[in-house]
C-alpha cells in the first residue's frame, strides 16, 4: 500500500510542478470556455442553455491534454520497466497513475467549473449539479484515458491518435454528465443521470487498470 501511495504522490508532484501540464489543462479549459461565446454569440440565454454541454466537452478535452504523459515519461527514461518489476502489481500501478491524473487534472477542473459556469450564466440551481457531475464523471475520463495512454506509450506520435481512440469511449460520460445539468435546468431531478454517470465512472475506474496494465505489459515485452 505504501508503494502505491509513494507512486501516487510522485506522479501528483510531477504533474503539478513546472512542465507538468496540470496548470496547462486548467488554462486550456478556461480558454475553450472563452472562445465558445466568441463563436456562438453573447446571448446569455443561449449560453446558459449550452453551458453544461460546453463545460463538459471542455473538461474532457482539457483532461485529454495531459493524458499522453501518463506513462510516456516513465517509459522514455526507463523507469516504467523498473516500476513494472517492482512487487506492486501493474494493475495497482495503473490505478495509482489514474488517481494521480485525476487529482492533478480532473479535480482542479471540477473546482474551477463553477467559476466558468457563472461566466456562462448557468442558473445557480444547476451549478451544484454541474460540479457534482464533473466530480463523479472525471475519474472515468482519467481511467479510460489511461488505457489509451498505455496503448500508445511506445509511439512517438502517440498524443495524436490518443484522442481518436479515447473520445468515442467517453461519450457516455458526456451524455450523462451534460444530461444531468440539462435535467437540473429543466426542473427535473438530475438523480437518474447522475446515478448512471456514477455507475459508468465506477465501472471505468474498476476495470480500466486491468486493461491499462495489459497494455503496458505488451509494450514492455518484446
Amino acid at each position: 500500500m505504501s508503494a502505491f501511495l509513494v507512486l501516487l504522490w510522485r506522479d501528483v508532484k510531477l504533474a503539478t510542478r513546472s512542465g507538468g501540464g496540470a496548470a496547462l489543462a486548467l488554462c486550456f479549459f478556461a480558454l475553450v470556455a472563452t472562445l465558445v461565446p466568441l463563436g456562438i454569440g453573447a446571448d446569455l440565454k443561449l449560453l446558459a442553455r449550452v453551458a453544461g454541454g460546453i463545460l463538459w466537452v471542455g473538461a474532457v478535452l482539457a483532461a485529454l491534454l495531459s493524458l499522453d504523459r501518463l506513462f510516456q515519461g516513465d517509459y522514455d527514461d526507463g523507469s516504467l520497466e523498473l516500476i513494472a518489476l517492482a512487487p506492486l502489481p501493474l494493475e495497482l500501478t495503473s490505478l495509482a497513475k489514474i488517481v494521480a491524473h485525476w487529482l492533478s487534472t480532473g479535480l482542479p477542473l471540477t473546482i474551477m467549473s463553477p467559476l466558468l459556469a457563472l461566466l456562462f450564466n448557468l442558473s445557480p440551481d444547476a451549478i451544484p449539479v454541474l460540479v457534482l457531475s464533473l466530480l463523479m464523471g472525471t475519474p472515468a475520463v482519467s481511467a479510460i484515458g489511461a488505457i489509451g495512454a498505455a496503448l500508445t506509450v511506445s509511439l512517438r506520435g502517440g498524443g495524436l491518435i490518443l484522442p481518436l481512440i479515447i473520445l468515442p469511449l467517453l461519450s457516455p460520460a458526456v451524455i450523462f454528465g451534460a444530461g444531468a445539468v440539462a435535467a437540473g435546468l429543466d426542473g427535473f431531478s438530475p438523480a437518474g443521470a447522475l446515478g448512471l454517470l456514477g455507475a459508468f465512472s465506477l465501472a471505468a475506474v474498476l476495470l480500466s487498470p486491468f486493461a491499462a496494465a495489459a497494455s503496458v505489459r505488451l509494450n514492455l515485452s518484446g
Partner: protein
Amino acid sequence: MQFLFRYANPAMFMRLSGAVLPYAAALTVLALAVGLFMGFSAPPDYQQGLTVLIMFIHVPAATAAMSIYGAIAVCSLLSLVWRHPLSDTAARAAAPLGAVFTALGLVTGSLWGKPMWGTYWVWDARLTSFLLLLFLYLGYMALWSAIEDETRAGRAAAVLALVGAVNIPIIKFSVDWWNTLHQGESIMSGKLDPVYLWPLLTMMAGYMLLFVTLWLIRIRTAIVTRRATTLMQRAA
C-alpha cells in the same frame, strides 16, 4: 480449440480458404442479385413510397457493420488468450470492411432521412451511435497502423477492440437514453410484411457473404504479403 487451430495454421488456411472462396463469391453474387431483384419488385410502401427500397441496402449494411465488430472482438480474444498470429491478421483484415459498411449504413440512412425526416442528418440515437461506431473503427485502424512492430500492434489493437466491445453496449444505452427518433426494430417482432421481409433477409445474407468473401481475400493477401516480405528480407 485444437480443432480450430488446425484450420488456423496459415498453410492450412490458404488451402481451405482457396477452396471455399469461389463458392463464397458465387453465393454472394447470387444472393445480392436475387435480393435486389426481389427488393425492387416489392410494392411501394403506402407511407414511404419508393424510398422504402433504401431499406434493402441500408439495414443489411448496419447489421453487417455490427457483426463485423463482433467478429473483430472474437478474433481479438483468440489473439490475446491463445496468442495466435492468424487471428490478429483476421481482425486487422476485417476492420476496413467494417468501417466501409458502417459508412454505407450512415450514407444510405441519411439519404433515406432526407425525404422521410426532412433533413440528411438528425441527432437520433441510432445514427449517433453508428457515427461513434465509425470512429471506433477508425481509431482501431489508426492504432494498427501507428505501431510498427506487428506483434505488438496486434496485441494493442486486440486490447482496444475488447475495451470497445465492452463499451459499445454502454454507448448504445447512453445514446438511446439521450435521444430516440429512429424507428424500433421490426424484423424479430414480426411487424414487417413478408413482401419486404424476404428481400431484406436475402440482402442481409448477401451482405454477410460479401463480407466473408472480401475478408477471406484480405486475410489471404496479408498472408501472401508477409511471405513475400520474409522472402525479400532473406534475399537481401
